[in-house]
């Protein structure tokens, strides 16, 4: 006997889950003890472990080249309903991004406003709040060495891990790829994205596991005290 429950997945499809942890052995046969099943450790049976390795050796198929473009064509057609859009707007965190041109324009506007309104502000009795110092910014040069690479990018928490947003250039043609990125004081994680593959920076001072078996390089700028592990 296996109790069954219907599980509706976010995809809208229905699957059936069985509470087999205690009873069902997966073949419809209930173990005689009727209680917990023993641990099933494949490694304790060399023949089964060997069969598992044989399955592991089966070759993967390459999906068709147009796979991504077909999916994205359909994705672009998906329209979220108003309630869903509202829900997303209310519940999801937002990141405000400013590129250098926007930052420069904003700084110019701020300076003009300060010149025009500054003297007036000084006359306000309680308005003399000193302007905070502009945040310090570092120009960080990332370097990756690979004479065989065709395209190298840097991606990390500073650009939301967009893999192909910040390219590195091999200016001298000797396989040394560089890019200079303005960054504010903070702790950042990053990797290189080389010809479609993520590569760790083997010269970083700190690393963090990325959850995919690789290590993100960690860059600490300024006086950030975020713990590094």
């Amino acid at each position, binding site marked *: 006997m296996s109790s069954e429950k219907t*599980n509706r*997945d*976010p*995809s*809208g*499809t*229905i*699957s059936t*889950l*069985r509470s*087999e*942890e205690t009873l069902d*052995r*997966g*073949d419809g046969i209930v173990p005689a003890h009727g209680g*917990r*099943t023993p*641990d*099933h*450790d*494949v490694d304790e049976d060399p*023949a*089964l472990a060997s*069969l*598992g*390795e*044989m*399955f*592991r050796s*089966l*070759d*993967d*198929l390459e*999906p*068709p080249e147009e*796979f*991504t473009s*077909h*999916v*994205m064509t*359909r*994705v672009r057609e*998906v329209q*979220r309903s108003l309630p*869903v859009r509202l*829900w*997303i707007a209310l*519940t*999801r*965190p*937002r*990141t405000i991004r400013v590129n250098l041109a926007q930052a420069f324009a904003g700084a110019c506007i701020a300076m003009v406003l300060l010149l025009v309104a500054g003297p007036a502000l000084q006359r306000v009795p309680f308005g003399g709040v000193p302007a905070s110092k502009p945040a310090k910014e570092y120009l960080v040069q990332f370097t990756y060495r690979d004479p065989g690479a065709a395209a190298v990018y840097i*991606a990390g*928490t500073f650009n*939301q*891990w*967009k*893999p192909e947003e910040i390219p590195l250039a091999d200016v001298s043609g000797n396989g040394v790829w560089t890019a200079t990125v303005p960054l504010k004081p903070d702790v950042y994680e990053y990797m290189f994205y080389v010809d479609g593959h993520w590569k760790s920076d083997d010269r970083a001072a700190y690393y963090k596991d*990325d*959850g995919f078996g690789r290590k993100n390089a960690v860059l600490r700028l300024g006086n950030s005290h975020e713990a590094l592990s």
Partner: protein
Amino acid sequence: MNPTRDALIVEDVLAGDKEAFGSLVHRYKKPLYNLAYRMTSNREDALDLSQEAFVRAYANLHRFDLKRSFFTWLYTICLNLTRNHLEKKRETLLDQTETLERQVRSAFPPADELVGKKQVTANLEKALQRLPLDLREAVILRYLQELSFEEITQVLGISLSAAKMRVYRGLEKAREAIAELGGKP
């Protein structure tokens, strides 16, 4: 919270950057396509199912829990679609399989005339298709997709001991199937 880069991309997509979803498609299209192919043993079905899984994932992205792993969520969607597809087609498939096997027997040499790796591969693939769906999923996730048991529990929504049991039973049944096929388990 230490968000993975997948979660950060999901945030971008939800903030209105639809194109960012393409990087998730690019990253997971191969494992998802192969997952569907090993479940169905049919390239066209695998293509339809894996692409549909991505579209469903996008359409339901606002329900994705950012603390969860994106790819295990994606696998769950794909497997649910695949199960429904296989269940709908079960009777048709059984009929087709019998017809197909007759055609194959008449058109191709029997399996024992195949040699080396080809025969082993053919037997493994046949054995996989003979497994019940829940055991097939477990074996595929563990050995062909190389997921950890913890990840399998997340994808299938089952306990650790149930995941281990399914993998174990799946291999046992695969061994029996290969023996029936005349191959070495």
